[in-house]
């Protein structure tokens, strides 16, 4: 049983964590940490409850810039119509995370800081050029989210460091994004493969595109070098297939109970084209507004 410390400010939280580096852990929604405590993966003696720290909660849009507080709840992202238009991948990723109950408690910060290779938020944020803002005893600094993850369950955060917010770029026009995943069950499941894509369009062609993957490498990853394949094209089937091949080559999945490494690579090569295509349709205004993509990117006529 751990003691709970309720800090009055961010500084107090950082101070307490720095003073008890070996024994104290921050807790946000607790949906990962309480499970870890039960399985013995984490054994904190002291919990620093972040939930009262308003300054790191909520989210705001400022032009093309989205600032997501680390404490922003997944459920509040899922339900925001403006984010639905501008950061569609993020909202689609939020929609499939756990259950309503879990999403109501779960935070963006917790999802990123837990460092789960299959977590939902990282790929969706990576395609939106996210930057992590961190406050520690040495002050404040920021790094690209792509450099935030170190290994399964590990991030760059040092004891005492807190993730305070994530900045992302969410253009209001001529851009679209998408998040798809492969799972065993159709809900309440962790991704066997997670794929996010964003596409910017200029003059009828791709001017910029990003693809990020989860669950197919030790850490969530951006696929490098796709620009040469897709920029300047209208994402014809051969281009999409080539992008899928590149992504499948770039990742390094493992085999486990939920699928073999080969299978995961194949799924990457299938989901990447689908995600890029849906992002393109959104960027070009040909996707029904407000309509989420099916989980695996394939329409089923009788959607339930």
């Amino acid at each position: 049983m751990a003691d709970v410390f309720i800090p009055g400010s961010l500084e107090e939280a950082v101070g307490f964590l720095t003073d008890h580096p070996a024994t104290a852990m921050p807790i946000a929604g607790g949906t990962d940490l309480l499970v870890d405590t039960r399985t013995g993966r984490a054994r904190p003696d002291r919990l620093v409850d972040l939930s009262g720290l308003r300054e790191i909660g909520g989210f705001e849009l400022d032009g093309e810039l989205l600032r997501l507080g680390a404490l922003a709840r997944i459920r509040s992202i899922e339900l925001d119509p403006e984010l639905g238009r501008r950061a569609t991948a993020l909202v689609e990723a939020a929609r499939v995370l756990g259950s309503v109950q879990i999403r109501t408690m779960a935070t963006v910060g917790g999802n990123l800081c837990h460092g789960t290779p299959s977590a939902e938020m990282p790929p969706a944020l990576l395609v939106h050029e996210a930057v992590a803002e961190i406050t520690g005893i040495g002050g404040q600094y920021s790094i690209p989210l792509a450099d935030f993850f170190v290994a399964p369950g590990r991030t760059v955060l040092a004891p005492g460091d807190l993730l305070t917010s994530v900045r992302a770029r969410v253009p209001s026009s001529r851009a679209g994004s998408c998040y798809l995943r492969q799972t065993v069950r159709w809900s309440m499941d962790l991704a066997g493969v997670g794929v996010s894509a964003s596409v910017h369009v200029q003059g009828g062609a791709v001017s910029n595109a990003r693809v990020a993957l989860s669950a197919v490498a030790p850490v969530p990853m951006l696929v490098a070098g796709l620009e040469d394949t897709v920029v300047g094209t209208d994402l014809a089937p051969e281009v999409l297939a080539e992008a899928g091949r590149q992504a499948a080559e770039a990742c390094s999945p493992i085999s486990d109970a939920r699928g073999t490494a080969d299978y995961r690579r194949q799924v990457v090569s299938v989901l990447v084209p689908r995600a890029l295509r849906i992002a393109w349709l959104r960027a070009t205004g040909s996707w029904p507004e407000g309509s989420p993509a099916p989980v695996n990117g394939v329409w089923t006529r009788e959607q339930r």
Partner: protein
Amino acid sequence: MPAVRASELQVVGRRIPKLDAPEKVTGQIAYADDLRMSGLLEGAILRSPHPHARILSIDVAAAERLPGVRAVIHAGNVQQGRFGYGNDNAPLKGDKVRFIGDEVAAVAAVDEEVAKRAIELIHVEYEVLPAVFDPYEALEDSSPSIHDELPDVSGNVSMRWDFDHGDVDAAADRAAVIVEGRYSAPQAAPAPIETHVVIASFTPSGHLTVWSPVHMVFMYRKALADVLGLDWRKITVIQPPVGGSFGGKIDIDTHDFIAVMLAKQARRPVRLAMSREEEFVGTRTRQPIHFRLRTGADAEGNLLFRDAEVVSDNGAYNAWGSHAMLVAMNTITSMYRVPNSRIRCAVVYTNKNYGGSVRGFGNPQATFAVEQQMEELADALGMDPMDLRLRNANQSGDVTPQGMEITSCGLSQCLDIVREQSGWDRRRGKMRDRHRGLGAAAYIHVGGGARIYGSDGCGAIVKVDESGQVTLISGSSELGQGSETALAMIVAEEMGVPIEAVHVVNSNTDIKPWDVGVHASRTTFVAGNAARMAAAAARDKILETAAELLDARASDLRIREGVVEVAEEPDRQIDFGRAVRRRLLREEGSVVMATAFYDPPTHHQDKEYRGNISAAYGFGAHVAEVEVDPGTGMVRLLNLWTAHDVGRAINPMSCEGQIEGGAAMGVGLALSEELVMFDGLIAAPNLHDYGLPTAVDVPRTVVNLVETVDPLGPFGAKGVGEGGIIPPPAAIANAIADATGIRPREYPMRPWKVKHWIDSEERSHVVAGKDSSGHG
């Protein structure tokens, strides 16, 4: 008893919510885990970390010294016997451990934390032995011997189930078409929300009371006495409300013995509650079964034979799972009319958690093979699979090769209904371009008891007290399946009282009469007949007294809503309470109480597995519709149409609930549920990785109740508890085959397997520019 027309029924056939539903949905019911008593200790079990090892020594000194520890037990300091078929098991292992999770020692302490710490302080020295996990490997001569201490076991074969009827080889020579294939069913778990919890307590004078949510409570009591050397007349077993069992709690398990031994040693009541991980690792699972099956038919589509080689993967010990072949065999020999059949089955020990009894008991496994082969056969014959099924369907009056006497039988009607509702004739085989498909499967299952023990009977006592309240004391018990409500309805119907007037008591061995226990979909049939007989006898006593008081002949009386009246002059009436008081409150008075015992007119199977083991058989048919994503292998179950011959629906709401719930479990088996193991280690013993289906995975299930009014069932009812789980794995496999052209050989049909099958199939054909990205 005379058949009753539906129009005459007052209570039976009404949709009545389960009587205990309000307490359950408000969380007020006290499950075993909610029970507390003074001085209660918490138990914990030390389990083997090795799949196969010899125990060299056990050192408990440090655990015993830990403050708060009240008892530490192991095979060396307790008195325990052996149990299990062939006595191959013991509560605490002294010689060898045979799977990861095997019980080695146990502790009782003042709280859970101390108990767990004490467990960590026990030091066991093992000599690790080579282990075997694959039953086919276990059959090889070079394989380690798991039960070398048992002289009758050789080659790790625990038992065989061989059956012969007619001449299979001659039939094969005559067959126009023969299909052959391998089909595998995995190790699954009952996965109830309530894990196993047991509390054991001795009085100072040595009387033992055990609280345990077990089904077969009388056999449980006897096993406790036999194995632990106790006097069974000094044991009371109380069954708290059950928070889900699905067969997992059918019978005594190792931890039950351990709790009692701990209580004895500590001289304090002990509670042993399984964690979710222990529930998966250390309690019983669904038997994995592997089939090599051949079915043959003549050119018209008349089935000629079935020929099966079966390997049943037993795990480390014989529990109920070793007998799952009892039911699997029925399906192979008797699902549809099959004139010749041959079965060669070996039940093989492996170093894994072992099989128990889970809803459907061997039948989903066998039906997966048999019903896929029906559609393969139809395709080979160029026939519609429904036509093939109807041509060979079991009918009333049939006696199957195993001697099962089919009386009421709605199989053809069930097939017709799901065929019509699913648009089978228009749609099957015509949706492959959209990766859609339809598949069907039917089942046969015992529905009027199952004689597997000396008695298949159940006792009942009906008492009417001076308030007019009717109490049914039934030998059977409630697992959440709604039997209490169904039994109360049967009593209310028979006595002419409102359902609210009937109370059911069914959870204490000191009070209730014998019942073999809840299994084999038998409770409504067997306990229902017993309850009906006792109710009729109690009603006659009321009528007798009422006749005296009303100065009328008993035959001129009728009962309505708990009031006895003279049929011709309804003003002359008397209520139940008053009738009882008149009988009781006088010199030489008496009470109104009647007992009955019903044992179905069935027979044990003989040594050749022949005999009418059930007084009725249940039938049903499902059609599943799926959409397959060939890119990821993800399967979306779109629709499930079901029709079940329930004899008569005592409570249609409960029947639908049983069928929907069963079907949901069947969907889980088909698509997601599996205890994935690596070298005998269950990789992730939690409900998430296990893949229990969610509401999103289970489509709206159309349920049709077909009422064939069974001649022996209470008001014509027969068993319905297990039927729903049986067809889905086969029906869904058939639907995937229709959608893709691949033939699933094993379940669960998880995405990576489906993808693998599709790709292997594609590689074996010329790829004709098919778009597998799925965009349309």
